């Protein structure tokens, strides 16, 4: 840490101005100085504190990953590509109506509904989208609200800001549905709470991570849509169907297919420096199923990684209560996932080195970290 600079200034210099900000919202809602506007983190006023939470919680400031892994997982479960794996399945919600509104198999929504119904959590922090297509985090305490917010969003949501702002004592036990960067922020908050037992992070009981390859930059995406005369609020649903290199935009007028190259150009720069595509610091991570066979069939399933004891308990309960259908995933599916995740990590490291201009400077990452080392080995 550069001596004398405030945490906020470091955040500005090292994260915001470096375009590393993921828009997760970890530094927002802690204090009046940072806010999220559209998908940008904005510093409103100067703060001169040197040990601020904003810098400590940010997923793009230096992190002791080894310590986090030790804190959250059984070391025997750890893999360099996709983090801790206790179990790996293909899953989908048993409720067909849920599958219709959800992105793929409806697993995430089914699990959150179950966690609420069973009292594992009292409130859920999920992302929602308003009319201007702006993401925001919101707190849901019932099934109806959760279901309303089902579906992938493809742009960042300041979910952790919602956690910071909305969780109070009445929120009770809290579950969060979050992307990898957000999951990492929550893990960092948890690690910090070892020092401070009074923090609201101790109300966090369940983290369901979402697989994430990238998010769209609102500014770039809006500009692209403007080209096709599509209004943001006209988009009902978005998807990247397996095997097809396209982004689908579902509107009243039909499905607009955007070429992958064009969609890629709209990706938030920060996502290019992200090494986590499977939300490695969650209890359970969920993504779209990828297996050989019928594409329409795939679309109806999720793949799921159980990472913690808490995660295992939830999945077992879900099967017991009959809300989740489970299939053993074919062995090659896990290999495929690991391969894809490793590729993402390699690409990110390459992008980071290109940005820093040095193979030694990995910005928020550390060469000495075991996972970074393993991936660098694989790259050779």
């Amino acid at each position, binding site marked *: 840490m550069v001596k004398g600079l405030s945490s906020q200034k470091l955040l500005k210099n090292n994260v915001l101005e470096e375009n590393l900000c993921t828009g997760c919202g970890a530094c927002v809602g*802690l*204090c*009046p*100085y940072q*806010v999220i*506007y559209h998908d*940008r983190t*904005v*510093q*409103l*006023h*100067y*703060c*001169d*504190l040197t*040990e*601020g*939470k904003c810098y400590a919680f940010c997923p793009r400031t230096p992190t002791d990953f080894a310590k986090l892994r030790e804190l959250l997982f059984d070391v025997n479960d750890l893999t360099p590509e996709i983090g801790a794996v206790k179990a790996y399945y293909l899953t989908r919600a048993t409720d067909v109506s849920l599958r219709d509104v959800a992105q793929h198999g409806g697993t995430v929504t089914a699990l959150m509904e179950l966690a609420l119904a069973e009292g594992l959590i009292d409130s859920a922090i999920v992302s929602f989208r308003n009319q201007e297509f702006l993401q925001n985090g919101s707190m849901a305490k019932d099934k109806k609200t959760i279901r309303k917010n089902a579906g992938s969003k493809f742009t960042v949501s300041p979910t952790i800001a919602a956690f910071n702002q909305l969780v109070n004592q009445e929120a009770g036990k809290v579950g969060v549905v979050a992307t990898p960067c957000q999951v990492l922020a929550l893990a960092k908050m948890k690690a910090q709470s070892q020092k401070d037992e009074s923090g609201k992070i101790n109300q966090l009981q369940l983290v369901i991570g979402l697989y994430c390859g990238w998010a769209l930059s609102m500014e770039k995406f809006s500009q692209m849509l403007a080209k096709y005369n599509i209004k943001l609020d006209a988009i009902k649903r978005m998807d990247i169907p397996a095997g097809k290199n396209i982004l689908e935009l579902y509107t009243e007028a039909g499905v607009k297919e955007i070429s992958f190259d064009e969609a890629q150009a709209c990706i938030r720069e920060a996502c290019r420096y992200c090494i986590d595509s499977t939300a490695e610091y969650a209890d359970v991570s969920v993504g779209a199923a990828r297996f050989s066979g019928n594409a329409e069939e795939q679309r109806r399933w999720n793949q799921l990684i159980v990472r913690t004891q808490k995660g295992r308990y939830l999945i077992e309960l879900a099967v017991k209560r009959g809300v989740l259908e489970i299939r053993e995933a074919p062995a090659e599916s896990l290999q495929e996932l690991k391969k894809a995740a490793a590729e993402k990590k390699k690409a990110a490291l390459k992008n980071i080195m290109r940005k820093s201009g040095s193979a030694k400077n990995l910005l928020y990452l550390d060469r000495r970290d075991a996972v970074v080392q393993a991936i660098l080995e694989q790259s050779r």
Partner: protein
Amino acid sequence: MSKLLSPAKTEVLFMGNEAIARGALEAGLSVAAGYPGTPSSEVIENLASVAGQRNLYVEWSTNEKVAVEVAAAASFAGLRSMCVMKQNGVNVASDFLLHLTASGTRGGMVLVSCEDPGALSSVNEGESRYFARMLEIPLLEPANFQEAKDLTKWAFELSEKIHNIVMLRSVTRMSHASGNVICGSLTDKSRVARFVYDGPITDPLRGPVISTPVVAKHRLQQEKLEKAKKLFEESPFNKYFGPKKPQLLIITSSVCFLYSQEAVSSLGLQKRAGILKLGCTWPLPERLLKKYLRLTDKIMIVEEVLPFMEESVKVLAAGMPKEIGLKTFYGKIDKTLPAVGELNPDIICAALSKVMKVKCKSIPAAYVKGLQKAAALIPPRDQTFCPGCPHRASFWSINTALKRDGREGFVCGDIGCYAMAALTPAIGFHTVRTLHSMGSGTGLACGFAKLGAFGFDKPVLSVCGDSTFYHAVIPALINAQHNRADITFVVLDNAGTAMTGFQPHPGLTTSAMGEAVPAVDIAQICAAIGAKVAISDPFDLDGTSKLLNSFMEQSGSLNVLILRQICALSPEKKGKKKFEMRVDEALCLGEDCGCNRLCTRIFRCPALTWDRTKKKAVVDEVICAGCGVCSSICPQKAIMKTEVIS
């Protein structure tokens, strides 16, 4: 009875501006017009307060140019009239003045310019004395309070003798200081307004009032000035004080005369230095100058701010070397005295001691040390907005909107209390990046908005107060609309010319004389120009900042946001709190991460104080205006507001 109407021969303590007003009344003034500006405002205010009793017409005009025009019409109709403004106002009025001085006046007409050396309450210390030279009109400068009255009265007589406007210049330390004045009699006015215009164009007193034929009228104008100069030669307002054979002659005017007298006496130079005090400073009376320049070969000229008199004296001296001999001049040109800021007796003492090679009685070291020690105890006090000031809330929202917008946009500032946002950037949350003359913020914003073709891509805002809006912003706004300058213009409407003391303006329903008048609506003007107009309460931080962002995100239109909230010091509001405020200490985070004293470190309302011992914010209920805004910025909701039920 107003002391302004004291009977003749009574001695009254008058503020300089009151003395000027009294002088005008003694001269039989009928019409006075002005635009508020420190240190000039009290002249019109005082005249307005006796308008009914003295059968005057007094108005606060929309701007200084209009004020001179209104007063000139009275002069054209044969009445005595006066226009009053601060130095910057003369700049505004100068276009009309350049024509008026060419056409000439009829009834006595005086232009009072109250100037602000050191810019104590201005954003420049402009010298309007140079206007007298450019306009080719006589200039008078009173050197004490009695003279402030007497010279004003005489200025009307002079104007009527030469049929041109006469300029009277005061400065802050004259206008705003007070001294004893022996009153003269208030003449009964019997003049009837009659404008004669059917004579030939070449007859300035009976024909149409016009500056053509230009050369002939210009020649006439210079003859008028010559006539004034002749009168100056005999004027009792120019007077010499000192020995018959001084080693040094000090030529001075205005309050610098008092400073010079003090400096001479404190250095014990009464027998060595003489002072020629001039009340008539342009054009200089040549014969009088010749007489005194002969006394010695060392001449020092003492004046504020620029070497206006010094230049004139040197020009005169250059024309009469045989009669007066070679001189050494001390003043601003040779840097014996500074040509910036106010003067004071100490500065003049230092200059005199150098020129006369005498030791300046130095201040005892112990005193200086004690002074420094005492000064260190004074807590630093920022220039800031008052408790409950709507501007603080307005700039808070402007900052929020600009930062959220993220394109590094900025505000072009304007003249009013809100100019402090430019002078002390922290109190405007570092949003205001330009500040010039009245109305110029919006004109500058127009210009910035048209730089897109050259790579400029920032959103531009301009702000102005309600009085400034009428004064000079409307043409810039029309320019923005007509030339498609996409700007967001914010009117900080606090219902009065607040900075100078709540003088009424065209947006209000009461005139300077207290009469009911129709208000001219800002929103309607903007809408008629074609702008998108919204109105918000600046105390609603969330609503205001959202409106600003939506405006900044729309391109292709002129957007106007009117932020309406009465000034906290307004007589209408003062002392009436809407909310009782208090800090819940249990909730206040103080310096901890999560707040870090947002209210006392950033928001900085003077009514929010920091208890160093408890490390908590405290509301100073004595000065808190009860606006309630701080409760909406506190991240902990620790600043509680309770509505006051009246």
